[in-house]
């Protein structure tokens, strides 16, 4: 058992890339692939197709949580910074107001909240999608450049648990793609 699994991870391909000539056939294929139990799949099209993320089993993005945490840190951090400066480090009497003049801290707290939330959004997005990415195996397939003009692709990655080169290939052939490419890693 252990041996077979070991062999499987040795499969020297990144995945199989099926090429389609229209969005409908791509959506249909994505649905069937997902129904078959494949999870490590990705679809590529020249324009955004809304049904596609659903068809490929739209997974929940962690980004909103990252943004929320960034925002909360910015909020607490911004307020603490002002509290530290005005109450602990350098207390100074301004027009008889209390040192902890929280109403006047709110605008800056608000700004640091937005700043940190926006920063977390940008950095979190880059961390999650892995950009910038100078190399990607898909570009080993010359036809893949068609994904930005008039071709539609569906890729099943080799690291999927159900992936077996020949079985997966014959399954993909049933979905009537115009071509199937083996993607070198």
């Amino acid at each position, binding site marked *: 058992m252990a041996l077979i699994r070991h062999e499987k991870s040795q499969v020297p391909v990144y995945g199989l890339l099926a090429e389609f000539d229209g969005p409908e056939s791509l959506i249909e294929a994505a649905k069937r692939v997902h129904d078959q139990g494949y999870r490590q799949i990705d679809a590529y099209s020249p324009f955004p197709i809304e049904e596609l993320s659903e068809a490929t089993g739209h997974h929940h993005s962690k980004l909103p949580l990252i943004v929320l945490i960034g925002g909360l840190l910015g909020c607490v951090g911004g307020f603490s910074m002002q509290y530290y400066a005005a109450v602990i480090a350098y207390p100074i009497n301004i027009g008889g107001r209390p040192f902890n003049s929280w*109403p006047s801290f*709110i*605008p800056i707290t608000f700004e640091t909240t937005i700043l940190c939330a926006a920063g977390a959004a940008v950095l979190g997005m880059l961390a999650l999608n892995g950009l910038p990415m100078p190399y990607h195996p898909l570009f080993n397939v010359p036809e893949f450049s068609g994904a930005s003009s008039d071709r539609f692709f569906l890729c099943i990655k080799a690291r999927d648990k159900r992936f077996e080169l020949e079985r997966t290939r014959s399954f993909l052939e049933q979905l009537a793609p115009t071509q199937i490419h083996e993607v070198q890693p």
Partner: protein
Amino acid sequence: MTPQTQATTQLAQRIIQWKTLARTVGIITGALSLVLWIYRPQIFYPAYLTGFIYWIHFSLGALAILMLSHVTGGSWGVVIRRILEAMCLAFPILAVAFIPILVGMQTYFPWAIAANVANDAALQHKALYLNIPFFIGRAIFYFGVWALLAHRLRTLSLEEDRLNRDEDLENHSRKLQRLSAPGLIVFGLTVTFASVDWIMSLEPHWFSTAFGLLFMGGCGAGVFALSILLLGRMLKHRPFLMNIKADHLHDLGKFLLAFVMLWAYLAFSQFLIIWSGNLPEETPWYLHRQSHGWQWIALLLIGFHFLTPLMVLLSRKVKRQRQPLMFVASGLLIMRYLDLYWHIMPNFKTHGLYHVLSVIPLVAIGSWWAWKVMSQLQQAPLLPKNMKSAS
């Protein structure tokens, strides 16, 4: 009878039921209000003004959002257009409801009593604006402008239902835009002055330049909350059933969130400016509202007019589902009342306790307002015919 017309009549019957209910409750609470007015005027007057402002603020919000949707387009505005129109068309009944306020002017407004003005230099300087004839004249002007705008918007909107050719529809929406764009400017000015007249001048020494905007922000939050509630109640019936998508609720939810934030932003700005300025003529207004029990209402407003709806409405799921969105909207409707209560009532009472009888004038005005809105909903198809035209 086809299933469609049958279902439409189902909703029409529901509206008739609501209307009858509103009229019955209106007659009873109206009579009770009259009794209250005669025997306990000191309770009646403040409660009546709060109730009046509460109901007119929905009509004002509806007028603004209606014009906004004509200027910007978008199918969110088309699905609630008839609801907004019905609310706007309640201005005549609100003008009648304004009469007791005119009768009680000297109870409400310190500047309306000659003896007060004679002993107060500030009031003498303000008398050029704050005097009884000018006040009445302005009120007539506001109601005239609002009713006229509402009437014209409704007429044009009904006319649109009779058009078929794309070209005509295009020209017609231009016409609505040409009315709505200047209409919004007129709205901004009249509502600012009206809020100064009817709410701010209750304490004539106090002033804040953000006040009109703050009131308008509240109008926006109020009308979206009420529209979501009404639409939610009618959603299961035709013609809404097939035409309202989760996207529409999502848009309305986003607007609700935006107005909640706008309200909070303006409310806090006003507070911060007065707090930083720390001037003796400005701070007493807040000091009074931060003690004697009023502070609890202020904290409720921070918690449930801002923090809770902000956190809940951030969720995409909540905005796209009828039940949770209606729940948030109902909560905000209560908060809208508390906000106005917190603005108006401290001028008349030293402590924040709610007097149970205050609810009578609120319900009385509300019932007659709802009766008028329901009558208007009856008189036109609940969805504009050319739904696509504005989307």
